[in-house]
């Protein structure tokens, strides 16, 4: 695809904010549109984003969990999101740097250009004239307005509605221009408008009410505008999509993606080694060691977007009283220093994770790898505990102070063997400094109940991140404690809250990063949690497949540009795009 002009940030003078494509692209597009085509007048792309499509072809079978839905507003899980992103486009795509402030780095998708209003309270998106739905109809501004309704109408009950709360409405200026109106000026308003919302064809849902959208036949047989088009969904077996040969962004380099529903990770890997599947998105340490034994397979690492931690409960159970042991900041810092996090990562994850540095992931632009860490120092931790009055006069191996033993319970979900292993390692390492830890492994839902009720001393938590670092507030902000958010340990810090507030209202990306980093540093210094690991995910993939563009927030982002060299193709790669039942 031809590279378009860069788009301006909202901090630039408004007079300069309208951008047009290059004259060369206009000529190419006009020339293309002028040609008669057998598929409803759809523009043949001049080239795809990585080069010629002459050698396009091949089938990739992905062993993964079955999607919960293919209708974008109804999707809650990763499999559904991945598949819908293959079939549906957004107006613009976040760049590889994952910037969420202004529109810097965002790449055109259905919108080939956009214009900020002088007061920045609205953005007009101009749709690419070449864009067509897979049924041949042109993509119109009315489709954008419909999509906004499908995401935000209360009757549609989309789990993503809250992500669009800053958008007041979407109006249609003309058939190719949709205008987003915002409630207030925000640094991330462009991100809000384009990241969470896929554009869907209004004509497919014309006679339905919002409450019927997600359960309609149109929702299960989607018609999108992405580089892959839907073929069929055989529940319990597979979802099949094929290349949209006339796509305005260029034909996908693969013919077909077969999303093969496989519930169990060990079954997924079995399917890989028996040749039934080509790709498994995430492998565990036990599988990592097995991959080299199979000549057809290789490991492909990509950036992660999550971190795990052990959060302390700073209050006494469900009450608002301070926890008798863990409310003390210096004690928490000492406990953190008693843990060899580097060794634990190697022990549990081998090369599939790195120590977490704080309440962020390394893929964030705001990540701070220089943030001062509480380094592993058992002797130092013991000295701190001594100085705080935690001693072991009776020699039973457990320190105590004023009759209160240095003892607490860690709860961990049985759904995560790794977090269970970490709990055991932590128990042993804290035993060495005189802290008695008991472990309570709980079924996942029981674990969540304990978190919500605050009925724990320490919990093995996990955070899946959004590209916006603002989500850090949901885990560590004062307004997100217990039932109001994910801050189950009731950590509060005015410094953190103030810095994150400043970061989320800063229009200058540099200033936002500075505030975020100060906020992270405040949390790390207070040690409301021990930052355990940040997964460095690895996929198992068949050697014939060339993988590209796996983004931290979406490993499937570049899937349309994955390829299989003609000389390496196997039988299923040669099926082609022939009509299938």
């Amino acid at each position, binding site marked *: 695809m031809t590279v378009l002009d860069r788009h301006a940030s909202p901090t630039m003078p408004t007079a300069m904010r309208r951008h047009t494509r290059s004259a060369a692209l206009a000529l190419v597009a006009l020339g293309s549109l002028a040609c008669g085509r057998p598929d409803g007048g759809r523009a043949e792309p001049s080239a795809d984003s990585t080069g010629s499509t002459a050698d396009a072809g091949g089938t990739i079978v992905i062993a993964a969990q079955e999607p919960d839905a293919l209708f974008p507003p109804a999707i809650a899980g990763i499999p559904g999101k991945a598949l819908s992103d293959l079939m549906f486009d957004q107006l613009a795509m976040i760049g590889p740097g994952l910037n969420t402030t202004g529109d810097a780095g965002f790449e055109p998708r259905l919108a080939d250009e956009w214009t900020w209003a002088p007061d920045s309270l609205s953005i007009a998106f101009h749709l690419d004239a070449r864009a067509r739905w897979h049924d041949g109809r042109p993509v119109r501004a009315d489709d954008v307005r419909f999509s906004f309704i499908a995401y935000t109408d209360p009757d549609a009950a989309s*789990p993503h509605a809250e992500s669009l709360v800053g958008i007041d409405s979407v109006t249609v200026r003309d058939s190719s221009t949709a205008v987003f109106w915002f409630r207030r000026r925000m640094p991330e308003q462009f991100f809000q408008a384009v990241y969470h919302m896929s554009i869907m064809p209004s004509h497919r849902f014309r006679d339905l009410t919002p409450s019927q959208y997600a359960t309609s036949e149109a929702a299960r047989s989607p018609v999108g505008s992405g580089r892959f088009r839907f073929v069929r969904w055989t529940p*319990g077996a597979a979802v099949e999509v094929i290349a949209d040969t006339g796509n305005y962004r260029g034909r996908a380099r693969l013919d077909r993606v077969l999303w093969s529903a496989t519930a169990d990770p*060990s079954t997924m890997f079995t399917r890989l080694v*028996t040749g039934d599947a080509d790709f498994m998105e995430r492998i565990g340490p036990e599988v990592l060691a097995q991959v080299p034994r199979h000549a057809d397979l290789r490991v492909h690492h990509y950036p992660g977007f999550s971190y795990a931690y052990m959060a302390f409960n700073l209050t006494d159970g469900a009450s608002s009283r301070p926890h008798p042991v863990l409310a003390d900041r210096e004690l928490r810092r000492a406990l953190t220093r008693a843990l060899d996090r580097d060794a634990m990562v190697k022990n549990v994850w081998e090369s599939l994770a790195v120590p977490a540095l704080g309440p962020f992931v390394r893929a964030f632009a705001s990540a701070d790898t220089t943030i001062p860490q509480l380094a592993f120092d058992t002797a130092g931790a013991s000295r701190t505990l001594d100085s705080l009055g935690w001693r072991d006069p009776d020699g039973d191996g457990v320190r105590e102070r004023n009759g209160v033993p240095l003892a607490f319970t860690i709860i961990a979900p049985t759904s995560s063997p790794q977090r269970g292993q970490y709990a055991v390692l932590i128990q042993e390492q804290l035993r060495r400094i005189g802290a008695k830890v008991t472990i309570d492994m709980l*079924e996942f839902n029981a674990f969540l109940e304990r978190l919500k009720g605050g009925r724990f001393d320490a919990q093995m*938590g996990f955070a899946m991140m959004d590209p916006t670092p603002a989500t850090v507030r949901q885990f560590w902000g004062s307004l997100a404690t217990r039932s109001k958010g994910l801050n189950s340990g009731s950590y509060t810090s005015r410094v953190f809250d103030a810095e994150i507030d400043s970061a989320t209202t800063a229009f200058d990306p540099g200033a936002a990063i500075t505030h975020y980093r100060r906020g992270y540093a405040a949390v790390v210094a207070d040690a409301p949690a021990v930052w355990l690991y940040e997964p460095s995910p690895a996929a198992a993939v068949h050697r014939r497949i060339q993988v590209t563009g796996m983004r931290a927030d979406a490993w499937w982002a570049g899937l349309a540009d994955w390829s299989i060299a003609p000389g390496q193709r196997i039988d299923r790669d040669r099926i082609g795009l022939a009509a299938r039942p």
Partner: protein
Amino acid sequence: MGRLVVRRILHAVWVILAATTLTFVLLHTAPGDPFAAMVENSRMSEATRARLRHVHGLDRPIGEQYLRWIANVARGDLGHSTSQGRPVSDALAEAIPNTLVLMGTALVLSFAVGVTLGTYQALRRGTVSDRVLGTVALAFYSLPDFWLALIAVLVFAYRLRLLPAGGVVTLLVHDQLGFWGRAGDRLQHLVLPALTLTLLTGAGIARFQRAALLDVMGEEFVRTARAKGVPERSIVRRHLLRNALVPTITLLGLALPSLLGGAAVIEKVFNWPGLGLLAVNAIATRDYFLVTGSVIAGSAAVAIGSALADVLHAAADPRVRGPAR
């Protein structure tokens, strides 16, 4: 016989109602809900989860939810699956035939194998072959189902590459085959899961059949038949097998629940999209309506199977039917 059938059908209805009510109550009183798994996803706030719970009526009192659900079931509406985004009846309609094929094949094969082996062993009681077969049957009977399934995959799919590792058909290729090719493809995929279930269930039936036959062999009427000079083959067919089959028919009713339970594990290992796999996934995602729907289907299958076994038992043994009127 007619009264017996009616009685069994009424009994089956009560069993299904009790099983589903218990499931409904246990599910709703257990921690979590269909949207709990979103907790670790920063994109889903607590407010969003609360809204989804409200939309699906999960914030209402459990009694109200139950009455609403039971009224809908009476109208044939089993509810909407939160994990699959479609009516529960649609999900069941696709899964049940797969399970019936797997269970039916395994049931027929395991009884054929079990009865044959058990009879063979009983007739050669105390011989080397009896001891060897008994040990082998005991070994299979003792094996965990998931372990045997994994070993079967390892040997036949991975090492020998003789059979597919899972699924119902070969994706992509299946549609390009002719009628017999498709039938062969389905059969190929059926072999490993059906074989695993057959080995597990058949081993138990063989031990049962052997013991039943040995019991009958000691009866006076068998000795009398022998004393009268009835040929051994005729004794086996007309006296021994006919009488020993009565408890084996009872075993048919008992085998259905265990087969259904075993099928859940086997379906998961072999990625067989049947009722068991559907239920396991539904439980993991707290998909209330899909779990209760699966329980209705599963308990109905077991109740019908048990009733069928009772009717067959009554047909085989006039004493069960009671005195003639």
